[in-house]
């Protein structure tokens, strides 16, 4: 295999130049005009055997197409002394006398150019893939740092215990979850954060996260002491300062908020997500929650979509649930039903009749037990229509009157990473308590039933799952679970994280131990982190 051409290519270029090659590229390999595409479609078969799928090649000297597998292009070359042929799928040059493909930098350059034109012409949203080629700077870096680390399937790189700095397990478990978020890891390890202000680097949480990621993935196995991180979060989210036990969920949201703010400079209004920010945090964590308020008088629907970073799910019986949403930067409108509308404790459907006549006779009695037992139960409850009560009249945007209404929340757009917060802590003016019920959650989660497109269409029918569409886009995999142990007053946080595809580890501050999926799924989850299984290109 020669990487520097061959005498035949050199001779060809000398007598005919590169033009014939470019013409074949543009006409028959990477077409970028309607005319050429048509021509290619017509010409696409072997002149000898008429077959189209036997590695078709075009003669570089005359108009001849022959297949490689059956030897028709080789026969042509030998009988005509037309030595070179172009592979019509890949655009590479085959030299018949040499018996191999030949690489020539000029030809390579041309085929790359034509390929780019082609992908533009076909309206491809993605820049055609080209392999990474090291720049001079990168070559120099590689030379100066000769140590290479290969991450194998059994490697423990990325696992590091964290010292508890006095009740800081709430932070440690979030750091573990974040450092095991695949997209975030890729972002930080590829050094994508370019700090806006040189002087404020010490003050930038994103820079500090970069250091934390480097610490985690350095291969060093001793415990890490995250004091700088803690200090930075304290300075930027003052309500978390102090050495008393804090709420891991609150810390998670605060950390995302500070990271999002410190990404400034990369934030732009151009983001595709509902938060209209294209910082890495919003790209990964932001989803859109649709709220449909239906007027009971005219049946008109007012729709709004709000960004969210996490979904807080009620665990108590819906009739007594009375908790206020946490003061988070992005407030997820938590349904606060006065009555349960759903007399169906299996929760499989919400019948439209009971909803639409708004007759309180059809309401469940107060205290009716419909506590959720699974993440699915929680999500079904979260996305079902709720009667807002006769005292909460809302001005209808359709009939312009204050009317009784129902409200339904659904997922308009899904985030790449979905964080579910099971509201185990009930804070009210009267009491504070922890709900320790076991809530089952799956390893693989399908969000399709909770999508606006799906739920709204089916929410009013009696068969919510009948025309279910299974698209792989809405499939999620579990990758981290934060657990809270003990009581409100004397509690402790630990976290399960996934390494590679299927290995689980329990992180208990400085201690890291191997765990099974079973351990994870049987645990009393507090925060559940899922990532999308398939990423679409933007």
């Amino acid at each position, binding site marked *: 295999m020669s990487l520097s051409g061959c005498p035949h290519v050199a001779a060809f270029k000398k007598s005919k130049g590169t033009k014939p090659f470019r013409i074949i590229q543009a006409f028959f390999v990477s077409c970028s005009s309607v005319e050429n595409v048509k021509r290619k479609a017509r010409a*696409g078969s072997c002149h000898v055997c*008429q077959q*189209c799928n036997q590695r078709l090649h075009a003669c570089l000297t005359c108009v001849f197409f022959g297949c490689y597998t059956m030897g028709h292009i080789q026969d042509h070359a030998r009988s005509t002394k037309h030595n070179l042929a172009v592979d019509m799928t890949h655009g590479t040059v085959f030299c018949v006398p040499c018996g191999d493909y030949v690489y020539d930098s000029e030809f390579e350059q041309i085929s790359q150019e034509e390929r780019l034109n082609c992908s533009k*012409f076909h309206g491809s949203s993605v820049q055609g893939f080209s392999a990474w080629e090291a720049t001079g700077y990168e070559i120099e870096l590689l030379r100066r740092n000769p140590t290479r680390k290969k991450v194998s399937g059994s490697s423990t790189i990325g696992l590091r215990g964290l010292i508890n700095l006095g009740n800081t397990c709430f932070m440690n478990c979030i750091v573990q979850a974040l450092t095991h978020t695949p997209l975030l890891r890729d972002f930080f390890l590829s050094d994508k954060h370019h700090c806006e202000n040189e002087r404020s680097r010490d003050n930038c949480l994103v820079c500090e996260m970069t250091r934390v990621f480097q610490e985690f993935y350095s291969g060093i196995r001793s415990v890490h002491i995250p004091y700088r991180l803690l200090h930075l979060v304290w300075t930027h989210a003052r309500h978390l300062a102090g050495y008393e036990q804090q709420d891991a969920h609150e810390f998670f949201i605060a950390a995302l908020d500070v990271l999002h703010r410190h990404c400034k400079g990369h934030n732009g209004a151009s983001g595709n997500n509902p938060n209209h920010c294209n910082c890495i945090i919003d790209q990964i964590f932001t989803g859109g929650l649709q709220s449909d308020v239906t007027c009971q008088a005219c049946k008109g629907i007012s729709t709004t979509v709000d960004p969210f970073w996490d979904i807080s799910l009620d665990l108590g019986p819906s009739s007594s649930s009375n908790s206020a949403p946490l003061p988070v930067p992005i407030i997820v409108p938590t349904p606060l039903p006065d009555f349960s509308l759903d007399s169906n404790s299996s929760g499989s459907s919400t019948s439209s009749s009971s909803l639409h006549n708004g007759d309180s006779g059809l309401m469940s009695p107060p205290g009716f037990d419909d506590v959720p037992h699974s993440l699915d139960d929680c999500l079904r409850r979260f996305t079902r229509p709720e009667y807002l009560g006769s005292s909460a009249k809302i001005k209808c945007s359709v009939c312009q009157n204050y009317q009784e209404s129902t409200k339904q929340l659904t997922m308009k757009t899904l985030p790449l990473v979905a964080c579910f917060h099971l509201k185990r802590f009930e804070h009210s003016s009267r009491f504070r308590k922890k709900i320790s019920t076991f809530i089952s959650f799956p390893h693989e989660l399908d969000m399709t039933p909770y999508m606006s497109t799906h739920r709204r269409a089916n929410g009013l029918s009696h068969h919510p799952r009948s025309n279910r569409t299974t698209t792989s886009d809405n499939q999620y995999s579990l990758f981290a679970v934060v657990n809270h142990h003990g009581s409100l007053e004397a509690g402790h946080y630990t976290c399960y994280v996934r390494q590679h595809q299927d290995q689980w580890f329990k992180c208990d501050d400085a201690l890291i131990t191997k765990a099974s999926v079973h351990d994870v799924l049987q645990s009393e989850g507090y925060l559940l982190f899922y990532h999308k299984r398939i990423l679409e290109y933007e």
Partner: protein
Amino acid sequence: MQTTIMADYGDRKIKDAQMRASINQKLVETGEKERLKELLRNKLIESGWRDELKAHCKEVVRRKGLEHVTVDDLVAEITPKGRELVPDEVKRELLHRIRAFLAQQSNI
């Protein structure tokens, strides 16, 4: 009896080839083939297929020596492995796309 079966078989083979050619023509004409290629390329890259195959190729080249290996040798050695390593999900998605495309084409 024997001959008619053979004739049918030969007939079908010709028809299959014609069908294949006209499907290919449609795919090229509409630009769908380019889009499918791009989709496939991206899916294979993100599934790690490309990296795995590349490592395998490097191994073959190292074993035989760069001067003694032709593209044909390489193709012959890695094709079985390459086919085997394509994730089922990728195959399924591509098949789904092709079916959907053909369903739209009334005149094949």
